[in-house]
Structures are given as structure tokens and as C-alpha cells.
């Protein structure tokens, strides 16, 4: 939680009144988040085919786009796991309402039209993580999508190109019942970075409500407070 911790330190310099206000606000946010409908998913990528591929290094790309602009949604990613030989690498790149790092947690909120997160990783046999997604519907839905980027910054080919016009691994049109589409790697196209078509697989599944795989409330609360403190801290510096 690189950014969160950093913003948390800044918050220690503000006054007691403000701290009370922050505490109250954080409680409101936590309460709102905990009361909003959400679904948690587990994602597992078989990344063995990426090991040593000439198109690497590879990046995990996450996008949350704002749809109709009325409803707000966020996605909270945690429990990034790399099997032997794998690890996050480099500095994360965040656009819009994206923050975090694969070494800890990653957050996407639809505060901008495009909210994107990318971070390089070294592939092991498996890359796994979880994420919790709010499910607020809009006339044009917010959309969460995942892709693998190669060294050129372009997506690794998948069958999504023919179906949805881009090489996503999967996309979720967010609503009360999120619509998930998953796409297999396209074995007929080489990645932009060169080499043979890459063979990998991806699996996404919802975690049953109340299951042990739900994110820890304390973690969510802490993350929400951190976000709030970052914002207030910036405000305080401007003053």
C-alpha cells in the first residue's frame, strides 16, 4: 500500500479538528462501501506460456471506464499471488482514479472517464488475485476490463478482438448482475512484441457471499480511509 502509507503520513500533520472530521468522513465512506452491493471474484491466470517469451516483459492492465456518468463504481484488488519465479516489477502506472501496487492492493474508482492501472510483472506459472466490485447500474454501464500488455504496451492477442474490438482477457459490464465475458488467447496471432502466439489461460469466478475469500472489512476500511486522507492532505497542502 505504497501510496496509501505515503498519504497517511501526510495526514499526521493536520490539526485535531480536521482529524475528527476525517474520522467522521471515513466512517461515512466505510459505511457506504459496506452497505453498497458488491461481488468478489477470484482470478487465476496460467502464465507459464509467458515465461521467457520474446514479447516480454509483460504488464497487467486494468481498466475501469465510466459509462453513463450517473452511477459510481469501484474495484478493489488484493491478494496478488505469483508462483515461483514470478513477481511484480517496476513502478505501477495509474491514470484517473487508479492507485496502488501489485505488491499490495490496487484500487480503481470511476472518478474519471478512463481509470487505468498497469504494472509490469515477471511471469511465473500462475498469477492470481482477487477483486471486489461494486454493482451500481447505469444506462450505459461502467466497464471493468483486464488485459495483458507486452513490451510494446499493446495487448497480447485474444479472441476478444473479433467479439468486442479489443484484445481484453475479460470484460465486465457492471450492473446489479454484472455481465462477464472471457476471451481465450488468439493462437493465430503473434504478439506485437514478436515471437510465437502465446498460450495461456485465464479463469474468473465469483466468490460466494460470506465465503472466506471475501476481503477483510478492516482492509477495506483502511483503504477507504487512506484514499480520503490522501485527498484531504492534498487539500491541506494547497492551503
Amino acid at each position, binding site marked *: 500500500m505504497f501510496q496509501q502509507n505515503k498519504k497517511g503520513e501526510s495526514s499526521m500533520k493536520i490539526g485535531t479538528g480536521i482529524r475528527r472530521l476525517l474520522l467522521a468522513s471515513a466512517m461515512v465512506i466505510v459505511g457506504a462501501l459496506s452497505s453498497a452491493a458488491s461481488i468478489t471474484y477470484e482470478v487465476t491466470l496460467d502464465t507459464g506460456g509467458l515465461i521467457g517469451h520474446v514479447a516480454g516483459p509483460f504488464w497487467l*492492465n486494468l*481498466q475501469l*471506464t*465510466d*459509462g*453513463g*456518468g450517473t452511477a459510481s463504481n469501484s474495484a478493489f484488488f488484493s491478494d496478488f499471488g505469483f508462483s515461483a519465479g514470478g513477481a511484480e516489477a517496476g513502478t505501477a502506472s495509474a491514470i484517473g482514479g487508479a492507485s496502488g501496487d501489485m505488491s499490495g492492493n490496487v484500487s480503481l474508482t470511476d472518478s474519471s*472517464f*478512463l481509470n*487505468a492501472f498497469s504494472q509490469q510483472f515477471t511471469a511465473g506459472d500462475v498469477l492470481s488475485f482477487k477483486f471486489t466490485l461494486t454493482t451500481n447500474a447505469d*444506462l*450505459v*454501464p*461502467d*466497464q471493468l*476490463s483486464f*488485459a495483458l*500488455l507486452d513490451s510494446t*504496451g*499493446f*495487448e497480447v492477442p485474444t479472441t476478444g478482438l473479433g*467479439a*468486442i*474490438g*479489443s*484484445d*481484453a482477457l475479460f*470484460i465486465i*459490464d*457492471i450492473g446489479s448482475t454484472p*455481465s462477464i465475458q472471457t476471451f481465450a488467447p488468439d493462437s493465430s496471432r503473434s504478439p*506485437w512484441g514478436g515471437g510465437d502466439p502465446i498460450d495461456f489461460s485465464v479463469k474468473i469466478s465469483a466468490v460466494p457471499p460470506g465465503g472466506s475469500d471475501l476481503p477483510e472489512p478492516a482492509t477495506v476500511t483502511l483503504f477507504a480511509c487512506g484514499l480520503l486522507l490522501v485527498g484531504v492532505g492534498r487539500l491541506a497542502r494547497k492551503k
Partner: protein
Amino acid sequence: MKNNWSYSALCAAVLLASTLPLSSQVLPTGIVRSDYVTGLTRPVQMAFAPDGRLFICEQDGRLRIFKDGLLLAEPFMTLDVTNNNERGLLSVAFDPDFATNQYIYVFYTAQTTPPLNRVSRFTAAGDFVVPGSEKILVEVDVSRAGFHNAGAIHFGPDGKLYISIGDNTAAARAQELTNLYGKILRINSDGTIPTDNPFYSTNTGLNRLIWAYGLRNPFTFNIDPTNGTMFINDVGENTFEEVNRGAAGANYGWNASEGPYNPTGNPAFTMPVFSYLHNATVIDPRTGNPGPPPYGCSVIGGAFFQSTTPKLPNQYVGRYFFGDVCGGWIKTLDPTNNSVEDFGSGLNDPSDIDVGPDGALYYSARLGEGVGSGKVFRIAEAGDRPAVTVQPADVRVTVGHSASFSVTASGTAPLSYQWRRNGTPISGATSATYTIPSPAMADNGAIFSVVISNSLDNVTSRDALLTVTENQAPTATILTPAAGTLYQASTTVTYSASATDSEDGELPASAFTWSVVFHHDTHTHPFQPEHSGSTTGSFFVPPNDHTEDNVWYRVHLTVKDSGGLTYSTYRDVFPRKSTITLNTVPPGLLVSLNTPPLAAPLTSPSVVGVIRTLDAVTPQTKEGVSYEFVSWSDGRPANHTIVTPATNTTYTATFRVACGSNANSRVSVAQGGYRLNMATQRYVQVVTLRNMTGAPVQGPVSLALDGLSTNASLFNMTGVTSCSAPSGSPFVSVNVGPDNILSPGEAATVFLEYVNPTNQGITYIPRVVSGAGGR
């Protein structure tokens, strides 16, 4: 060109009787034809009663009976009919329970105003009708024209009476279920409507009688009494004659198709099981070239050869016999596989075919319009004793003018003839006809007969009287119309003549007998029946009968002097013509001029004053583009009539690209979220379209984006709307699969690839456009 009415078979006799020798017939080896009934006048359809009597309709209203080898002098009944053109007493049928109820059904054109085609039931008392027993079952107004009259009736094994009705020259009515024209009707024998008729629950009133439709002039049809198979002989327009398999609810395509040519490809049409072209020069529109024989002009028939004592080889049992008037042939059709085989040719304009209770085949032939010229022939395997079927008639001649006696006989060939004078054989008089080249007064009163023999037996004809007189035959001159006179439709042609006789001087009006015959191509139609008592007459040329240009009228005159000798002459009156041309803008689109649709330009010579129907097919598709009619150059609707002008005239139909239809009420549109394609740096939105109805949505399908966000650039758009409002909206094509149909419940997706520097999302009002046509 093509005849324009159903039973040219009947009227063709006028011409063909004098041109087709009776001996020209060709039949399968071992099968012979013989005269069965002679002395008929304008015979049409016929039927055998369950008791073996043959009932024959004479068009002028007499229902004749042939029994025990004799044509009864007194008709069963004489109906007051309208007998011009194709109208008159046309067909007869017997109640399935005839033995008990003595019910006889006839189809005739009543002498009413307007003229009505009527199907009535009568009750028989022996060989005569019970006076006042008529019960009218069905009536159809046929005031429009005397052509395309149809007129057959038959009972099916289901006990229902089937009736064929022509389109009465209003072709479009055949495709409508709101009238009885161009239809096969089905009624109960008491005239009520069967509740299991195919359109009973969806139609109203008498239109619930409709059993099948899309027919032009089904003058004859028949039903196999053993299994209910029906074949309908539909007389065509310019190109094809058809034999159709009858089926409840079937649509045989007229006037959008003819024969096997279905230019619109309408799958709802039932195509004929057999069809043939009119002649070797007629272009088959399917190939653009002439087609092979057989040829003909008017299909007639028909009879299913079913008999427990067949007089034809067993190979014919179960086959359907049908013929053609102009072709003079009879063929057979195997109902099990629709294969057609030749049977006979040179058979002299058949008009109806039937199977007798003896197992032989019979057909009626008009053989001219004259009194007593019609016949019924019998066709059977050889092996019969000789029999006289047409007795030699008395002959009256002027001294010095030749006299001929003729006989017709049946029986196993070869037949031999020996004529006798006053009982004494005449040397060398051994053919069916005996001619005295130059009779003298000494020959007056001589009696002639003939003995016919074959290997089985011999028979002697009746005695025929030769009367030789010094009386000279009269002569006549047709004064008007003068030779070379041209007529045009909707005008009256008057005719007049004078006649003199060496003994009688100038002959009185009572000596004149007139008739008018309408000629079309190689066949004829009755037009004005024989009538006497005037030196003048006239006829009105109808504007809405034949639309062809190879037509003319022949005015016949016969004068008779007080001595009984006659003289005949005629005057041909030809039409004044102009040429009608149909064009389209853009060129090459389908139009019709009393024809199935053809690609423009369409040129047709036409008789001045005749009403023609112009039709611009709309909508229509050419090379994948759908067009809809805009206007004719004369400002009239897509389908309208014109009166053929006196000068050559071109009519141009203007079309525009048709618009697809708005399918928003049938197709739901679900917009997906946006995603940035990292490779193209363009956003992509997936849109899902789903057919929410129970009916298919015809492709192609497009998604138009009305009011698309300002500054947004759509990269994969197919085009911009310009046909349907609002115009100027970008649209993309939606792939709905190879069947080009979005089926009920089926979904299809399309993605929108765009950039929008102002607001990275895009907004628009989705509009689904379906079907061929512009966007």
C-alpha cells in the same frame, strides 16, 4: 402469342376443323379412335351418368343425352344462357347419390343483367329435367368480360362439389382472398359452405368457399375418384400452360407467376407439376431462349384413367389424361412422379376428356362453330366389330355439281368399305367417302348406302338420299366493312351484304345468316353466334379482353336460296396498332404489361383502344439494392390501366432506392461499457441487438447512431443515413448470420470503435434499421 381465354379448345374448332384432317391422328399401336357421338353443336364439357348415359353440354344452353347409341333429339333441358365468348352452358356433374336423389349439377352463364356464372342443381326425371327444380348454389358476376370464364365442376370423393372460376380478365383478383375470381371453390352439395374449407375461419361470407387460388382460367380440372388427387388445368397468358396439383389453400401464383417462371421468387407459390410453352418462338423467361416441345395454346382435360374394365393397356391405369386445343394432342401424366408421356396427336382440338363406364377414353371436340359439327370420340384398344358412328347424310346438289357421301365407322382395323347405289355395289367405291363428280338429273332420288367390314363382321349404313336439282346456288357480296378496314377497341364494327340468286333474284334478309369469330394467333374464339334475318349487323369491340396484337375478327356470311342451296363468304377485319414501351429509371427494373414482371425496356405492340395494365413492381431488388416505385411518367399509380393510344407511346417508371424499415419496436438495443484498445488508442463499445418479438426480423440489419456526440469520430461506420429520417446519422452493419435474419429471441452484437476528444464516452440514440433498402 397466347390465347386469352380458357377453352380455346371449343372455339378453335372453327379454324381447325377445316385444317386438320380427321385421319391425321396418331395413337399408340393397337389403340384406335372412333366417332362416338356426332351432330353436336358447340359441345363443351361432358360427364357420364352413373347409369351409363353420356350428358354433353352444348354451349348454347342445351344439355344433350347420348344413350343406347343415339343422341336424343330432345335435350335434357335447354337453359337460357349468355353464350358469347366463353360463356354458356359449360359443365355437368352428378350427385354422388344420384341413383337415389336424381340430382344433376351444371355450370352455366345465366342470361341476366349483369351476366352471372351460376352453379345450379336440377332434378332429373328420366331423360328430362323436372320443371322448376333448379336450386341455385353459387353465382358470380362476370360482367367484366366474356373471357377467362373457367367453368368446371366435379365432385370429390369427400362428397364436396369443386368449382373452377376464372379471373374474368381482372388478373390481380386471383391473388386476393376477398373475391371468388381465379379460384377453386368447394361447397356442400346443398350449397352451404364446408366448415373445413381452408379459409373458413379467416374469411367471411361467400369468400369462405375459397379452396385454392392464384389461378387464371382453370377451364377444366378433375379429381381421381379413388384417392382424391386433383389436377387443375390452368390456361396461361403469353407463355405457359399449366397442370397444377390441387391442394387445399394452395396459391398457384397467377398473376405474379406463370408456368414455372416465378420472377419474384415467392416461396408461397405452388408451381405447376407440368407446363409447356406456346410455340417454338416463345421465349422461356427462365433461360431467355425458346424451349422444347410440346407446344400448345390452351390446356384442357382431364381425366384420371380409372376403370375395372380398362379398354386401354394397364400401363395407363391411374394416369391423368390431358390435352391441348391448338396442339391437338393428348398426353398422360403419372400422378406418382409427375412424368408426362405422349399418347395421341392429330386429335382435332379436344375440349374435354372423360373415362366411360365401359373403360374406354372419350373426348369431346368442337370441330367448328356450325350446327351439328361437334363430336365425341371414343378411344380404345382395337378389337371391336365394325360400327357406324356417323351415318351418311342426305345430299342436295345442283345438277353438274359434285355430290359426296361420307361415313365414319369404328371397329378393329382394317376396315373396308363398299358403297352401294339402290342396293347394288358400285365398282371402285371402296373408301369412307364416295363422290359423284357430276350428277345428272337422272341421279335425282338415288339411294346410297355403304357396307363396312372387318375381320370380325360387317355393318350397313343407313340409306342416304341424293337430290339433284336444276336450282343454282346463290352468290353474296359483303359490302361493309370494306376490305382493308381497320378496327380499334371500344368502337362498333358494322357489316352488311347483298345476295342474289339466279332463280330467286335478290335474296331477302331471311336468307342471311351471320356469325363473327375472333381470331387469335392460330386459334379462334367464338364471338357472335350464328344469327339470321338481317342483311346488316354490328358488333362492339371490347376494350378489355385480349391484350395481344395478333388478333382479328372474321365476319362470316352464309346465304341460302329457296331451293336450299347455300353460299358462304367472309370478311377479315384487322386491328389498328401502336407500340407501347415501358422504361424504368434506373434502367432494367421489373415492370409488367399484362405479363409476369419482366426487366425493362418492355415493348409491346398493342391494339389501339385496348385497355392495358401497367405495373411497376414495388418494392423490388436488383443486384442487392431494393427499389421502390416513385411515379410513372403519366402521373398514375404503380399499377394502373391505360387505353392504348393511337400513336407509339413510352411510359417510364421512376424508382428510388427503398429505405429499410425502423425496427426499434421489435429489436432491443443494449449498450455495453467502453474500453480503450491499447493498440489503437481507440475506445470500443459493444452493442447487443436482440429480436424481442415472435417474428423474424429480415436482414440486413443496421444500427444508426442518431445525435452522436459532437466531436466523436466513428471508425468502423458503414455509412451515413440518407434514406430514412433522420438523415446524416452514421450507421454500422450488424452481422445477423448467413440466413440474413434475426430470428425471434436471437441476439447479434456490433462494436463501435471511436475517439471522442471532448468527452471520451459517446452518446447517441440507437436506431435499428432492417430489411433491404437504403439507410
